[in-house]
Every structure is written in C-alpha cells, then in structure tokens.
C-alpha cells in the first residue's frame, strides 16, 4: 500500500512513543526535532563525551529515560530523523523546516505535534538581572552541561519541578539558599484526592521534600515574591518575599530559578490553524483536543506537554494515542483494547494534572499587585506601568492591541514567556475577565530564524510499497 506522509514534531516522550506506534504499523515517519539528540527536555541526553550514569542524570526516572532512549535507538533505521531542525512555519498543508542553514518544506497527510512545554513565568521586580533563570533552564544547565546557575541558588515559584530541580542541585553538590513556594501548604492538602490518582508520583514528591529538608534546605510555603535584588552589572544579589504572616524577609543568593509549573508550546498548533479554547482552571488558552489527540484541523494531531501538561508518563501515553488516532483516520486497523487502556491511562494523568493545578496554582492575583516599575516583557524591556498605561489611557484591553501599542510580546520570545502574565496585568487593570483579553496571535517564525537560511528543494521520495506492520 502507498506510504502515507506522516510527520512527528518533537522527539521527547510523546514524539518517540508516537513514532514507535507508527513504525509498528508499517509507517516510516519523519521526526523533526530541535534537540541535538532525542529525549526531549525531561530525558535530555548529555553530550557524547560526558559519562554520568542514568541514575545520576535522571534519578528516580532513570529506568523510564533508559527505556525511551532504547526505544528510539531501535527506531533509528525505520524513521527519517531530522535532529537540530527548527520547524519554523506551517502553511498550506506543509511543514517548513530549517536545518544547517537550509530551509525545506514537507507536505504531510498527518502531522503530530509534540513540541513540549516551557516554564510558565510571573514577573517579579528585578527578574531582568543576570542570574535569574527559568526553572527549566536551570535544570537543563545541570542535565546537559553539568553546570549550576549559581553558587547559592534560590528556587522560587510553584509546582513540582521546583522541588525536583532544587533536589537535583543539592544532589549535584550545589548550595540551595531556599525553596520559596507561592502555594500555601493547605492547597496541597486539599488537592490530595486528585493527586492520589498517581500515588507513586505523590510519594516521590513527598520524598523530594523530605530529602531537601534533611539536607538543611529552607522550604517556605505561601510566600509572595517581592523583589529580586541586584545590579545591572553584577547581577542577582538576593531575594525578598512576603511570608504568610505578611512580613518581608530577605535572603542572599547569586542566582534565582523561577517558575510556576509549565505552559504548552502551542505556536505550531496556532500556525496550523487549530482552534483554541479558554481553560478557566489554569488561566490559559489551549488548543481544542479530543480524547485521542485530534485537533480541530483534520490532519493535525497534538500530544504531550505541548498541548496538556500531563508530565512525561502522560506524554508517552498521549503520543501513542495520537499515533493510533492517525492510524484509525488513515483507515488502518487499530487495537481497540489498547486504545481503551491508553485512554484510561491518559484520563488518570489528567486527573493528576488537575490536582497539580489545585496544589500549585498559577498566582494570577500577583499580577494586579506588581509594582509599575516591574519589567513585564524582558525581551523588549517593557514595564508593568507602561502596559497598564496603554490599557487605561489608550484603551488597549485586548492582548494583541496592547502588544501593538506597548511592544509587550514583540521581542525574541514572541510572548511565550510574558504573554500569560501580561494578559493578567491587562485584565486586572481594565477590570475585565481574563478570557476577554484574548491571546496573542501566533506568527511565524516559531523561533528566531536566520536570514542567511537558503531554501533547498527537497526531493520527496516516490511513494513506495511497504509491508504492513504487525
């Protein structure tokens, strides 16, 4: 039978399990990945000349990381793997890529987007000082390069990653000045019923906290960040926060890892024309999705943390499910029992996701209290005060309008890091519900794109007869 053209974007847990399921059905997918190697962010591989063992790199998740890497190795000859490749645009049923300075385009019958997530960030005064990193970046520095972001690090924000990365820093021998969590402990207790959907993960979380405490790391819950102190030249010097009694405390440090859980990377889905809906529980716009991973666009499928942050295990299930959806839509036979099992697995993960959202909520209420001199858009250096000014004085009560007038979201990140917080600032200033502020329209390129890129015409292989897989 004629080989359908199937493209998977991303080679993390979702992308690899998706490709594996496709290959098992006799399809040879193209895998486009920004990374130098497979594994995504969570199971990011270290450079070839590094020799840290799995147990050291991935801790409790070592077995899962090994399993995913091994699966990918087994697939290598059966897929067209494009590492270090930027998927910069989607238009007219084609994916546009750039690799090694060469641009090409690829028509597809099915496109599965598994682009992963990045940190969700709420500004804090002083977060533009050198030495402030996102939580994810501070983990990547450690995992990929065996570097710490500083010699005395404060972890501030909320979410499970806060405790995981702090613990990884302690294990690696770095000094952790404090873990400051905006979520009060009571919220975590109340979220327990939902979190019990995955008792093993809950137990791992508790172990992380215990281990941090045992190492003498100060953990404070229910805080509100006040300021990151520092100098333009010298960078971060310390952090101030308001404790749950309302007292402002100050801690000295030379680096801050900041993050409030994760946000899906939805730009490609946006460029593909997928419909989005507002998710009130997490205060964000997310692509519409069915239980199998189908988007609102017929040939576009979405899986992993790039569409719903279910974590790595959830992403593996979602990736396989999306592949089964593709197979079903291509008219291939699909094992109904496997679909049901994966759907149950995914539903369990989703219940846990909802628990995490309750336990470590996005601190939307902080946006209204940010001082006018706090930078909201770090790329363009735009203050909260300027964003409030265009909202109130120039009537920019919609996200794209406020962007046009203030430049918030116009820089290198294109609003990926400031967009959520900016929307909260606008909503609070204008006194309108967050969903009425809308969302920043996605525009190509997905990441900065070199003008030196030269287009090449890709010779698409002739459709070939291939044997049906098992």
């Amino acid at each position, binding site marked *: 039978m004629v080989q359908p053209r199937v493209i998977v974007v991303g080679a993390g847990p979702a992308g690899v399990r998706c490709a594996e399921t496709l290959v098992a059905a006799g399809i040879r997918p193209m895998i486009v990945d920004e990374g130098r190697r497979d594994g995504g962010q969570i199971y990011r591989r270290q450079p070839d000349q590094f020799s840290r063992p799995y147990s050291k790199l991935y801790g409790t998740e070592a077995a899962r990381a090994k399993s995913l890497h091994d699966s990918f190795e087994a697939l290598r000859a059966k897929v067209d793997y494009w590492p270090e490749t930027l998927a*910069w*645009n989607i*238009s*007219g049923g*084609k994916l*546009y890529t750039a690799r090694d300075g060469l*641009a090409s*385009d690829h028509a597809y019958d099915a496109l599965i987007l598994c682009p992963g997530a990045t940190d969700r960030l709420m500004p804090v005064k002083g977060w533009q000082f050198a030495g402030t990193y996102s939580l994810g970046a501070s983990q990547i520095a450690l995992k990929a390069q065996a570097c710490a972001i500083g010699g005395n690090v404060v972890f501030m924000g909320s979410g499970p990653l806060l405790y995981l990365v702090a613990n990884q820093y302690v294990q690696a021998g770095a000094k952790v000045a404090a873990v400051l969590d905006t979520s009060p402990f009571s919220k975590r207790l109340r979220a327990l019923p939902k979190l019990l959907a995955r008792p093993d993960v809950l137990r791992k979380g508790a172990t992380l906290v215990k281990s941090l405490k045992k190492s003498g790391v100060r953990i404070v819950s229910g805080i509100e960040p006040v300021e990151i102190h520092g100098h333009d030249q010298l960078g971060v010097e310390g952090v101030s926060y308001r404790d749950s009694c309302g007292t402002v405390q100050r801690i000295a440090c030379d680096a801050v890892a900041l993050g409030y859980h994760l946000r899906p990377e939805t730009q490609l889905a946006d460029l593909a024309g997928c419909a989005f809906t507002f998710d009130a529980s997490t205060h964000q716009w997310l692509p519409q999705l069915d239980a199998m991973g189908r988007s609102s666009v017929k040939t576009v499928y979405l899986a992993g943390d790039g569409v719903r942050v279910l974590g790595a295990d959830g992403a593996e299930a979602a990736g396989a499910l999306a592949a089964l959806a593709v197979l079903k839509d291509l008219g291939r036979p699909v094992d109904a029992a496997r679909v049901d099992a994966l759907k149950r697995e995914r539903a369990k993960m989703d219940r846990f996701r909802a628990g995490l959202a309750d336990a470590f909520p996005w601190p939307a209420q902080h946006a209204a209290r940010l001082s006018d001199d706090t930078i909201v858009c770090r790329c*363009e250096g735009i203050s909260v005060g300027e964003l409030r000014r265009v909202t109130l004085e*120039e009537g920019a009560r*919609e996200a794209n*309008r406020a962007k*046009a*007038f203030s*430049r918030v979201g*116009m*820089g*290198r990140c*294109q609003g990926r890091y400031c967009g959520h917080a900016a929307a909260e600032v606008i909503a609070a200033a204008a006194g309108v519900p967050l969903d009425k502020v809308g969302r920043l329209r996605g*525009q*190509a*390129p997905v990441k*900065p*794109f*070199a*003008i*030196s*890129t*030269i*287009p090449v015409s890709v010779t698409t292989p002739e459709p070939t007869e291939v044997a049906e897989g098992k």
Partner: protein
Amino acid sequence: MSRIDADVMIVGGGFMGVAAAFFLRQRGRSVVLLERGLVGQQASGTNFGNVRRQGRFLPQLPLANRSREIWGKLPELIGHSAEFLKSGHVRVCYRQEQDDGFEIYAREAAQYGLKLDLYRGAQMRAKFPFLGDEVLSASHSVQDGHANPRLAAPAFGRAAARAGARIEENTEIATVEKDGDLFRATSTDGRTFCAPNLLITAGAWGSQLSAQFGEPVPIAIHGPQMAVTEPVPYAIGPVVGVSSPFIEEVLYFRQVERGNIVIGGCARGPAYLDERRAKVLPESTLLQFRQMARLAPALTRLNIIRVWSGVEGYMPDDRPIMGRSGKVDGLYYAFGFCGHGFQLGPGVGDVMAELIDTGATSTPIDPFAIQRFATTASAVPVEA
C-alpha cells in the same frame, strides 16, 4: 432606538478615516466615525511604515508633499510623534534602465519641490556602505523617512476623539442609504447614525460600500509580506527600497531606533475580506532572505523574529479612489490606496476635510476620481 446626528459620517476607522475626522473637527464640523473593529487594525496598522515620496506617480506629489508637512508637525498637532523619523529614503536599482529612470524622475520631481540626490560608484558606497555589490545607483530623498504604523492611526483617532469626534469602534453597519438629504446608517446593534455627508474610508472593503451607491470599482485584495529582525545597534539611517520591474526584486527595509529592522516586499500574499485576515506565505519570507543577500548582505547575519500581514486594496492602475462620488451628492471616497497609503494618510485626511468643508481642494486630486471606473462592467472584489 438611539439616533446620532453629525455633519459628517465616516465609515472605516483606518488612517484615512481618523485623519479626516481629526481635520474635520479642526474645521469645526461634527463627526461620527464608524469602525467595525478597532481603529487602524488593517492596512493602516500592518504596513511597512514608509514615509516616502520619491517613486510616486508624479501628479500625486502635491498630496504627498502636503502630507509630509503634517508628518513633521504631529507632536504639536495630535500630541504623539507616531515615531516619525526624518531618516531619509534611498531608492536603489540593479539595472541601467532604472538608473536612467532615476535621472528623469529626479528632474521631474524637482518641479514638484522634491529634491533627490543621485549617488553612484565610490560615492554611493561611501554614503551607504551597507549596499550590496550589485547595486548600481541610489536616489536619496533627505526629507523623507518612516514612522510606526501600529501607533499612527490610533494616535490620530484619539486626537480626533479629544477634539470632539465620536469614534464608534466595534460598530458594524447593517445598512447604509441616502434618505432625502441625509445618509442613514444602521448598525447591527440597532443604533442609527445620520449625516448630510458620508465619507467612505473602508480600505479594501471600500468597493463593497461604493457598490451600494452604484459605483463599484475593480479592487484587488492582497496582503503585504512583512518581517522584522531582532534588535541590533541603531546604525542604518535611511529607509532603503529597490526599484525594479520585477516584483521579486522589490525588497525594502528600515531600522527603527529601538534597533529592529523591518523588512517587506518581493511578493504579495493572499488576503480574505470575510475573515479580515491576510497571510504571509513562507515562500515570501524565504524570497526576501535571498533578495536581502543582494541588497544588504550584512543583514543576512540577523534573525527575523516575526512576520505579519494585513488586508490591502489595490486598483488596476495603482492609484487610489479619492474625491467626490460621481453619482450621489454629499458622498465622498478615500480608499484603495494600493499599498502606498501610509505616507499619504495625514494629507488625505486634511484634503478630504477641506473638500467636504469648502467644496473644493487646494491640492489636485482629479487623477484619483472614482468616475474613471464608471464604465467598468464588472467590479467584484477579487481575493488573491
């Protein structure tokens, strides 16, 4: 049901509409402006931002000159600079025919008061060192420059509102007709607007409205293909644009003081009147990259961070529709500016206000009269 009366009703809150509203208020006329979305969202807000006179159809220069004078006075006039920068504008070419054309154009433009300096060879390379080897000559207009399209029309709109114009955003018109001496528009939310004068400044949608008064025009709909780089130190003074008979060579760029370089040209993209959206084709972006390697090779070391487009209306003779209706008393048009309306915006507003207020204009606009399409049989908007 509420009814709002004014001397002049303006339909369309693009640059032309809000500028006309502002200048009508300066003449003491009451104004209501109806805008379906927000002021300056389409072509007015998404274009390149050129404040360029050279290269225009010569009989348009008096209008462009009048507009240029207003650009220089924006802070005093509307309390906002719209980031207008008198940076100069350089028109360059790769071929002898265009070089010859530059000479002729410079002589003729001088008759209209536009001074152009021609540079070639070593002199050109010393003055504009970033130009690529293929560039043959450069025509420099010192007095021209660029401004920020995202800010200009909204700033005019706010100034008009402060001066007493009613700017009704998010107001979609269900019907518009002439009833005796009055034009009457009804919005989809049931409000009625009445005025003895109606000015249609609906851009790419202009023909949909002029057709209701028996004057359809053959307008084609396209989207400009825009991109912007990351910021780099501010170093390139003038706006730079290529003159060529081949559209794929017609690349232009400008650097804003913040440092980003705005790029456009080489192609036109598809635009959709119903969705009010236009697209940048990936091929256009890649084409611009190739042309940048010819025009200013050093800039190929930068990254672009965003592309965008907007809905523009083009006339077959590349000239706008501007002036009085040929059929209905009290009806006026200013739309279809063929991708070169941004520089003209303030001038068009001023001239249309003068025309509506006094019945005549001190700046010639005859070549833009809608009557030139009166014999066109079929004039359905073309989406492309």
